[in-house]
């Protein structure tokens, strides 16, 4: 070791000290900038809510919920839109939940690690990235023109079901993966079959996680506009679908599945693309209803996930 190793660093000391000060000042500055950048999104969300509320709140009344759309902005309402949304979502959930959960169970509990399983996995993550309007084109070409299901509630529900399928599959897989192996082994050791283990132990334990995924998927489907416009959903519907229950035998009817429909986002789009402040107020009011529904669902899912993470101690 030579004496030179112990020489002071080059440059006069005071300057180095000043530089250290500057380095820490820069860090303090970044803490402010970072917080601001993080808050920009939240401020935008607040501005959006405020803007919608200012324009839309005055229009929200009992009549607005129970009137059909009309040429006159002041008399127009969202009755056919929210009924349509409700029925479409019903079809979507009926198809997507069993299909998505079953696919996830297969991938997590049954699938062997082979080429075909890999294909399915890559495929699911790719499907999640396909733009929603492409699902609309799929539905248009396949359901409307090839299978002849028309521009109906059934077609719309099925289209949105395919759209949210990846969301349900991914969420369910994560929930199933979090179930400890010991639970399965315990049940297997007592002589349960694989399906009995899955049905009686794995699924109940994974249920809250599955529910989170389903809620997020449903809220996504509720707000989707593009694929439904693509299949040719009408924007002006001044009637309700056939009621599912009638007083005459056979009392239950599925005719509503084949009726034409409109949904909340399409109704809002129709109003926003018309000139005139009055219709824009209607669009804001419909948007507000939609936003409260979807954000409410999302917040619920996030809360559920948060509670889950806290409680989850196997």
């Amino acid at each position, binding site marked *: 070791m030579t004496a030179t190793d112990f020489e002071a660093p080059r440059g006069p000391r005071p300057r180095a000290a000043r530089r250290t000060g500057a380095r820490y000042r820069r860090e303090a500055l970044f803490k402010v900038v970072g917080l601001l950048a993080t808050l920009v999104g939240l401020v935008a969300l607040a501005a959006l809510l405020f803007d919608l509320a200012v324009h839309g709140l005055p229009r929200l009344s009992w009549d607005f919920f129970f009137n059909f759309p009309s040429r006159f902005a002041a008399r127009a309402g969202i009755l056919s839109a929210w009924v349509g949304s409700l029925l479409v979502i019903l079809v979507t959930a009926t198809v997507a939940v069993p299909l998505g959960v079953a696919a996830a169970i297969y991938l997590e509990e*049954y699938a062997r690690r082979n080429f075909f399983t890999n294909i399915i996995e890559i495929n699911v993550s790719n499907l999640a990235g396909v733009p929603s309007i492409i699902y609309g084109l799929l539905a248009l070409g396949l359901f409307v023109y090839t299978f002849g299901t028309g521009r109906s509630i059934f077609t719309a529900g099925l289209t949105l079901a395919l759209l949210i399928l990846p969301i349900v599959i991914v969420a369910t897989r994560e929930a199933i993966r979090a179930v400890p192996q010991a639970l399965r082994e315990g049940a297997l050791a007592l002589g349960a*079959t694989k399906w009995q283990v899955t049905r009686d132990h794995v699924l109940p334990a994974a249920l809250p996680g599955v529910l989170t995924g389903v809620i997020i998927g449903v809220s996504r489907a509720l707000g989707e506009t*593009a694929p439904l416009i693509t299949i040719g959903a009408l924007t002006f519907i001044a009637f309700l679908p056939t009621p599912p229950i009638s007083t005459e035998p056979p009392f239950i009817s599925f005719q509503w599945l084949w009726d034409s429909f409109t949904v909340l986002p399409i109704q809002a789009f129709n109003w926003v693309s018309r000139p005139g402040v009055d219709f824009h107020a209607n669009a804001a009011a419909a948007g507000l209803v939609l936003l409260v529904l979807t954000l409410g669902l999302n917040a619920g899912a996030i809360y559920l996930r948060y509670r889950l993470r806290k409680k989850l101690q196997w």
Partner: protein
Amino acid sequence: MASKLTRSQRRILKVREWIIETLLFLAATSSVLVTLGIVFVLLYESFVFFEHVSIVDFLTDRFWTPLFADPRYGIMPLVTGTLLSTVVALAVAGPLGLTAALYLSEFANPRVREVIKPALELLAGVPTIVYGFFALLFVTPLLQKIIPGLPGFNILSAGIVIGIMIIPYVASLSEDAMRAVPQGLRDASYGLGATKLETAVRVVLPAATSGVAAAFVLGISRAVGETMIVAIAAGTQPNLTFDPREPAATITAFIVQVALGDLPHGSIPYQSIFAAGLVLFLMTLAFNIVGFWLRARYREAY
């Protein structure tokens, strides 16, 4: 009291297990069928289109006017419209999302993060139709005060709002990647006398590069496929431009425009939405593949 199963009971159980496994397998296969369906429909319907329009014209013509008396089918204006809105969105979401991710991962205290991260994720849950309304009737008037002469429909406003929408995709995934960087790397950097900021920018960020890049790619893929915001706020006029202040149609906005009209199925303008959709699908597929590859790399890193 446990009792031994008879042979026939065991057989029934076995058959039931087999049936259930088959059903579950079919459910998993259905997702592959969806992809095959998409590819088949897009290719088949585009094929009808390309019987009447040459691929060379489609790729090189500078005008897209399928609804005119003298129709021209050059996809370029739609592609530039799509890319332009994506670039604007990325210019908003990139810096904001990345800074937010660095802040949340390295500086924010855990309590703040627990609140802000889910709140940011709400941004991804807002219906796009509501964003469209916001872009057309809030952001555009605001921008018109700053940029005089800005038209009512413009790419800039739509792009900015798409950017806001994809902030959570960029921020959340980037933050996950940064938090996956082992603490040892940070400790070593602190040990050498680096400040927290220097460590964040020169150690954590480079180590998380592929994860951050994957987050960006996901954001881009969302922006490219976004429909309602551009259809409402950017107009439906195809326009070969690189100036975001102008109105311009994207691929998605064009599909919406045609779907809202009443063209008969089988007519060439009608078939053109499938050809346009095929281009869109290929674009997002390319981004998704890059993202998938990046994520796979980042998973291997530590």
